[in-house]
C-alpha cells in the first residue's frame, strides 16, 4: 500500500476500459498548432481502421485551422508517448498496438501554424 491510510485502501480506477461501452480512449495532439489549446480525447472502437481516424474523426475537430487542408498525410511524422511511431493506415487501432488511454501526436513538416507562431 503506497498511500498513507488508517486501513486497507483499495479502490477501482474510475477510468477502466470496461466503463467506456466498448470504446477505448485515444488522445491525439497536433504539434506546432496550439490554437487547439490541448490534445484531444476521443472514445473510439479498437476495431476502427486508423484511416478512419484521419478521414472521419480528425477533420471535424481540426478543420477550423487553415493548415489542416494542407496536410500531406503521407509525410506526417507520428509519435506515440513521445517516441517516433509509424501507424499502418489500413489496420485497426488494436492492430496498430493502440491501447486504452494511449497518446499519439503528429507533426506536419512545413506547417507551423498562424504566421509561423505554432498557433
Amino acid at each position: 500500500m503506497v498511500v498513507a491510510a488508517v486501513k486497507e485502501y483499495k479502490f477501482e480506477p474510475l477510468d477502466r476500459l470496461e466503463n467506456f461501452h466498448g470504446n477505448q480512449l485515444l488522445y491525439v495532439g497536433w504539434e506546432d498548432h496550439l490554437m487547439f489549446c490541448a490534445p484531444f480525447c476521443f472514445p473510439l472502437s479498437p476495431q476502427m481502421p486508423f484511416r478512419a481516424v484521419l478521414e472521419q474523426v480528425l477533420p471535424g475537430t481540426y478543420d477550423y485551422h487553415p493548415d489542416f487542408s494542407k496536410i500531406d498525410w503521407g509525410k506526417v511524422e507520428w509519435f506515440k508517448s513521445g517516441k517516433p511511431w509509424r501507424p499502418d493506415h489500413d489496420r485497426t487501432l488494436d492492430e496498430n498496438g493502440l491501447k486504452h488511454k494511449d497518446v499519439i501526436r503528429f507533426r506536419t513538416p512545413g506547417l507551423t501554424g498562424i504566421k509561423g507562431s505554432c498557433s
Partner: protein
Amino acid sequence: MDMQVKKKLGLKERYAHMTRGLDWETSYQPMDKVFPYVKYEGIKIHDWDKWEDPFRLTMDAYWKYQGEKEKKLYAIIDAFAQNNGHLGVTDARYINALKLFIQGVSPLEYMAHRGFAHVGRQFAGIGPRVACQMQAVDELRHAQTQIHTISNYNKYYNGFHNWRHWHDNVWYLSVPKSFFDDAMTAGPFEFMVAIGFSFEYVLTNLLFVPFMSGAAYNSDMSTVTFGFSAQSDEARHMTLGLEVIKFMLEQDPDNVPIVQRWIDKWFWRGTRVLSLVATMMDYMLPKRVMSWKEAWEIYAEQNGGALFNDLARYGIRPPKAFADACEAKDHLSHQLWGTLYNYGAATAIHTWMPGTEEMDWLSAKYPESFDKYYRPRFEFWAEEAKKGNRFYNKTLPMLCTTCQIPLLFTEPGDPTKICYRESDYNGDKYHFCSDHCKEIFDHEPEKYVQSWLPVHQIYQGHCFKPGTDPTAEGFDPLAAVIEYYGMNFGRDNLDFEGSEDQKNFETWRGEATRNA
C-alpha cells in the same frame, strides 16, 4: 468590612482559561481511538502544549468583532442593491470575474469550513483544536457573505443561478473542486499544510488581492466590502498556517521530510488552481490592477522568497516546483484564457478576445511572450469572429489526472511544445501536465486513480440527464451535457459580444444616464 474585589482577568489569562486545561486523558476508550487520525501520516507530536497560539481571541470577543463587521457589510450591500450599484461597474465583462468567483472560490470557502471543523475535531491538542474551530466558523461566514453579496448580481445577469451544481460537475470547476477534495481526504496534518499553510499563507495574496483590488478598480463596492470583511480573518488564518508548520518542525526532526513533501505538493497544486486567477487579472478585468506576472513577482517571488529564507533554519527549502512556477508567469494567463475561449460553448462565463488597446497592454506587460506566441493566435480568432466564424472547439480535451486541467501548459523553456507526462500503474496509463503533477500521482497512485475527470465521465455517459439516449440519430453530446449542467445555452455561455448580459447592461445603464 472591606469587600475583596477580584481584579478582572487580563486578555492573556482569560484566553488561557478558555483554551487550556479543558482536555483530559480518556479512560473508557484509549486516546488513539478517540483521535484516530493523528498518527498515521507519520507526524510525531511529543508535547501539544508547546503550541503557541498565534492569535489570542476568545469566543466572546470573536462574536463581538464579527457582529460589527457583519452590520457594516450588510448595510453596504443594502445600499448597493438599492442604488443599482451593479450599473456602476466599468463594463459588463467585469461581471464574469464574479461568476468565476461564486462558481470556483465560494464553494471552497464552504469546504474550508468543513475541513477545519474536521481537523478541529481530530487534533489531540486543545490549542490547535480551538484555533481550527474558530477558523471553521470564519470560513462558513465567508461563504455566506459571498453568496449574499453576489446574489444581487444574480437578479440581473446570467451565469450565477446554478453555481453549486456547476462546481461539482463542470470541467473548469473540477480544478478547484478536486484541489480541495484532495486536501479534505488527506490526514489532518496534510490538510493544515495544504490549506492552512500553502493556500492561506503562501498563495492567498495571489487570490484575494487580485479579486478585491480588481473589484475596487472596477467600481464594485459590494465585492470590495466582503473582501474587507474577510481580511482581518485572513490575517489570523495566515498566522495559524505558519504556526502549524513551525510547530510540526519543532516537535521532531522526522517531521521535516514529510512536511517538505507536502509543501512541494501543495505549492504546485495551488499554483495550478491560481491559473484561473491569472486569467481573471489579465483578461477579465476591464480596468486592470496589475498584470499576473507583476503580482507573481511581488507575492510569490519576493514575499515567498523571504518566507522560505525564514524556514531554512528548520531544514525546509523552497518548493521543488518554484523555478517552474516562476518560469510559467509569462505564459499562464494567455494559455488559460485561450482555453476558456476555445471551450466558450461549455463555460458558464462569457469569453471574448481582448480589444486592440488591451492587446497592446498585454504586449507591454509581457514583452517576452505575448507578441511572439499569443498575439497571432488571438488576432486570427478576432478576425474570424468578425467574419461570423467565431472559434468554438467542440472536441473534448485530454486532462491531467492530478490537477484536472486540460493539457494546455507548455514545456518549461519551450512555449511551442505541450508538456506531456505519463505513468503506468496496474496496467493502465495515466497522463499529466507536468513533472510535478506526475510526481504527486506517483507518490499516491491509489488516490488519484479515482480522479473524477469530467471528460472521461462524459464519455462514460454520466453527464446526461436521465432518459437521454446517446445512440439516437443526430445525438448532440455537447447540448446534452450543457443541459445536464443546468446551463442555458446561448445565455450563460458563448461570447460576450452579442450576449444578453452585454445588451441588458447597455440598456439599463443607458436608462440611468439618458432620457428614453
